[in-house]
């Protein structure tokens, strides 16, 4: 926990070094670039190869040396995947699930994070410690009572609500927003707004939210990715007729039994990755900044 609390300092004080300030001792040699190219290959190969096999016929998986050039059958294989499992519904469902969870987590985290960072109230420090402690709780282990709740009492199994509701807030989000806002808004600004007659909601909406925007974007990215990639809980509460992208892909990979259609399965895997890949190409820089400022495993 002390790591967590000490961490506040690092967020803004970590010195940044630019290429211009480089000295002789840290100038990269050809070995560095060779290693980086190898890393890039290792990171990209499984995805590229999936696309290659997904765009050819299934037997091409046996080619030696390995097939590296895409074939003409990608759309055919994708169509087969969509016929085998309900991928269309799955994509719509995952967008709804991840989108709703993201909006909820970002909103409630900003609200609570703003209160913890900038408002004075009795019990603030104790409650903040409670937030930090709850961050360490592996909520994944509460699935059995949650399942009983969803199936027996709420009768929500098979509906998107069963996946969305358990994701509506995270302790990490609150802590993350608090850490960001505590430094970024000067107290004088809030006092000035109060003197000008703004009520507390006005202070939050017109000062807190605009200041929080960059952190909201980063938190939103992480939350969306975590919700999109979640598997265990959707597997338990969503049936095969109303799948998420991950449960649909899991069903697809089991569909062939002993002789699966490798091209179809890998084409499906590519489809499941595509939305996050696009997001990554657009917002990868923010994601990297978020991790390096200290974001977290989602």
């Amino acid at each position, binding site marked *: 926990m002390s790591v967590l609390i000490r961490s506040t300092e690092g967020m803004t004080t970590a010195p940044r070094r630019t290429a211009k300030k480089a000295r002789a001792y*840290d100038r990269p040699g050809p070995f560095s670039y060779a290693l980086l190219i190898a890393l890039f290959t290792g990171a*990209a190969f499984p995805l590229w190869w999936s696309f290659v096999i997904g765009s050819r016929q299934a037997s091409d*998986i046996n080619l030696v040396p390995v097939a590296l050039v895409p074939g003409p059958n990608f759309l055919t294989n994708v169509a087969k995947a969509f016929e085998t499992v309900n991928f269309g519904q799955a994509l719509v469902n995952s967008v709804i699930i991840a989108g709703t969870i993201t909006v909820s987590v970002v909103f409630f985290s900003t609200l609570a994070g703003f209160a913890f960072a900038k408002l004075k109230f009795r019990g603030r420090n104790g409650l903040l410690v409670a937030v930090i402690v709850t*961050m360490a709780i592996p909520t994944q282990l509460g699935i059995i009572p949650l399942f*009983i709740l969803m199936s027996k009492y709420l009768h929500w199994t098979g509906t998107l609500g069963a996946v969305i509701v358990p994701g509506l807030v995270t302790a990490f989000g609150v802590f993350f927003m608090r850490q960001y806002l505590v430094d970024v808004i000067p107290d004088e600004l809030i006092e000035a707004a109060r003197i000008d007659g703004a009520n507390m909601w006005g202070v939050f909406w017109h000062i807190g939210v605009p200041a929080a925007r960059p952190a909201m974007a980063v938190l939103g990215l992480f939350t969306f990715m975590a919700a999109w990639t979640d598997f265990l809980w959707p597997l338990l509460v969503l049936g095969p007729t109303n799948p998420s992208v991950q449960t649909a892909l899991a069903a697809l990979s089991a569909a062939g039994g002993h002789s699966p259609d490798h091209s179809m399965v890998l084409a499906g895997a590519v489809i499941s990755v595509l939305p996050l890949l696009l997001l990554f190409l657009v917002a990868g820089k923010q994601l990297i900044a978020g991790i390096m400022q200290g974001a977290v495993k989602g």
Partner: protein
Amino acid sequence: MTATVAPRVPGLTFRQRMSRFDVKLSPYLYISPFFILFALIGLFPIIYTFNVSLYDWHLLKGQGDFVGLANYTDVLGDALFWNAFGNTISIFVLSAVPQLVFAVIIAAVLDQALRASTFWRMSILLPYIVAPVAVAVIFTQIFSQFNGPIAGFFTSLGLEPIRWSFDVLPSHIAVASMVNWRWTGYNALILLAAMQAVPRDLYESAAIDGAGRIRRFWSITIPMIRPTMIFVIITATIGSLQIFAEPKLFDQGSSGNVYGGSNRQYQTLVLYLYELAFPRRDFGHASAVAWLLFLLIVVFGIINFLISRTIAAQDNSPKRGARRARRTAAGATVGGTQS
């Protein structure tokens, strides 16, 4: 802020009283959605799991007889529990160690004045956006005994193909590879942040004193980023204690695998929990496993706390060297959680 909400403070207009009320109450209104929702969806289920673990509890029939701690003794006497425990530890070792070594090396390479540094950072982070399900599906094809690039490689060398999903150690290597592929770049970026917080003048003066590149790495970089390395190790540990999708889906088509291999040779603890709770419909025993796993994670959390406290104590000792810088290096990783 010391005044209480007194309804009759003389000299206050209605408007002013409303304003005071607003100031007092708003913070609680702002934090309450989080606490109320978290209590319902986070805290209550974990605590209620303990209650379930004290009963015979069937998925469909519901609550049965109170059995005390019998579920716990049953589980601890079950060879399958210890099988899953051993597999989890084995996969943890096979993933945490190479992951940390490679992440440190990658971070050191990235901690230079590179051309196109954003491109390289993005390329090592690419696997992170691939969901564990997709990783498992893709790596099942790569780590196939009969087809795919690795099998082709072995055949072309005239070697016996490795039975990735049938033999214990190869299957653990395959599952660990999925975890390593997805997380190494992510951890490298965390370590890179710590490395960038190391003051450059330390390197400069060491270089002037004649220390070579390797020497500077071992004598400056590694000690300075140690707190962050411990942080990465602990989060990787807690994460790998909860691995599920990778063993669940590895080779699931051909072996009819729902339990982590035809002979549970790569069944992890969470997968064991899943097998108990859903295919076997035994919520009582599954809840006992959940709590045992919870305790295991708490133990690791306490170790985390003790280690970081020890490091903090070292920081305060009057030893020579850049204390402040070391603390900054620790700070560069804003606290982690596993959700």
